[in-house]
């Protein structure tokens, strides 16, 4: 009788040992998913696409581990819980980095906008100084229209910044700066041409 009781106790002990981690880590799964979604909403898909991809891959691996354990007779979700906790922590850490990355992109766009403005103003100032004559009349008319076109494009930089399309804004600003510098070069060449003829 005593032996039977001992065996029974042993049996209960073994079963409880293996079933102590048997509950699906539903809360941990939801927390990890929510953390990844939060990082995505913050802008990780734009500003940290590679890191977000890794996070999603880690989440998939964690969910696969949950699925694996779920199919076992003696389930043990310890490893899965650790993996999910890491995904959650990594997602939260990634989310925390996004505002700084956004700010850096915004500052780069604003700097590019200022440089485009300076280049445009320089071209306008140079055109003011360009000598008016028969040989330069057509060029001056053309440059005036070109600079008006650049002003139209310049307004689009701010529109892009307002939409938080900082990379688009930077690209447009760089193009405008280049074009304005090119016009300045052409104006200067036209001025030199007139000087050379005199």
């Amino acid at each position, binding site marked *: 009788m005593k032996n039977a009781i001992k065996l029974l106790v042993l049996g209960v002990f073994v079963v409880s040992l293996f079933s102590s981690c048997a509950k699906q880590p539903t809360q941990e799964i939801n927390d990890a998913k929510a953390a990844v979604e939060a990082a995505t909403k913050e802008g990780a898909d734009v500003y940290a696409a590679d890191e977000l991809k890794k996070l999603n891959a880690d989440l998939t691996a964690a969910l696969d581990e949950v699925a694996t354990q779920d199919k076992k007779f003696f389930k043990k979700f310890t490893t899965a819980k650790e993996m999910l906790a890491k995904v959650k922590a990594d997602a939260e850490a990634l989310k925390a980095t996004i505002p700084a990355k956004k700010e850096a992109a915004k500052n780069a766009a604003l700097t590019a906008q200022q440089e485009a403005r300076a280049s445009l103003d320089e071209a306008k100032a140079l055109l003011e100084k360009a000598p008016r004559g028969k*040989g330069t009349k*057509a060029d001056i008319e*053309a440059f005036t*229209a070109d600079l008006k*076109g650049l002003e139209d494009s310049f307004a689009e930089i701010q529109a892009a910044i307002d939409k938080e399309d900082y990379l688009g804004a930077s690209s447009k600003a760089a193009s*405008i700066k280049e*074009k304005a510098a090119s016009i300045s070069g052409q104006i200067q060449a036209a001025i030199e041409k007139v000087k050379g003829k005199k």
Partner: protein
Amino acid sequence: MKSRALLLAALAVLGAFLVACKTPPVPAVVNQAIDQEKELWRAEAAVYVPEEYRVYLSSLRLARDKLIQQKARFGWFRNYEEVEKDFRAIIETGQALLEKIEKEKALRSSAGAAEVKALREQFEKIKNFTLTIREADDVRRSLTRGEVALREAEICLEKQKLTELSGKIRIVNIYLDQAHRFLFSLLARYADEDQINLWRRWAEETVAESREKRATALVINKLEKTLTVYKAGKIAATYNIGLGKYGLSDKLHAGDEATPEGKYRVVRKNPQSRFYKALLLDYPNEEDRQRFSLAKKQGLIPANAGIGSLIEIHGGGEDSLTGGCIAVEDSVMDELFLEVSVGTPVTIVGSLKSVAELLTWLKGGRR
């Protein structure tokens, strides 16, 4: 005592059993396939091979589910043979997709570069053209906006951001089409069949006269900005010219900076003009006077405006902007002075192109 010994023996057997059963390791190809999927994502497989990528992902998911099935088994009963086969097949497919993506990228990059180059040529052509068109501001403004977008497209090409490239080129074409629309509205006269036929008739009559009299004649084409010398009805030379600011318009009155159209003759050769040498034409002719009177009656020109005069072919350079005259290089004036005499016919036409040819020419052959 006996039961304790039995219990210990059972535990020892169980322990030995567990130690003896080696769990087979997960095949290395599994991680390789997972890494490959990241590589495909980075290569933008969803853009370049969307359908094949979707099938690839589907296969990967199925293989992972099979792996889960095996991992869920008791270690001794796990068999990764089929799983390994599946993952190897996936890796093979993935490799083929990567190669296909590279080829597709190379094609798109090459096509994009060609398109950007063609667009740039279009822009340059129209920009040069606008130097002789009245009220070309709108055209140039559109062109400049298009050039900014074109530069952004070039940056996409340089950085191999090919998915953004097509969007940028679309914007460039929007501005180019806008510029074309402004241009067409300014060149309405050049698309008028009756006007084109009239210009062609003038040119043919002038060439016929040159042939019959075995003499020199000049035909000036304002749209193409050329001066062609005919000798005995055959082309002897063609030169580039500069026109008035509104050179493509038909001159109506003094100060309008337009170059007249019609059949004229050289009335004087000036070897020492303000612009090197000059050939004075007999503008205004009878048709010019009639147009001028009608326009004045209709109030289309200022009441105190004169009809204008002193329309010449002179030196000073083909890139000059005249007040309505036709400018050529000084060296060309030297040639013309030798070939031309007082009385030489000089016919000035707007264009000899048909409407279809004009549209094709303006669009640079674009559809």
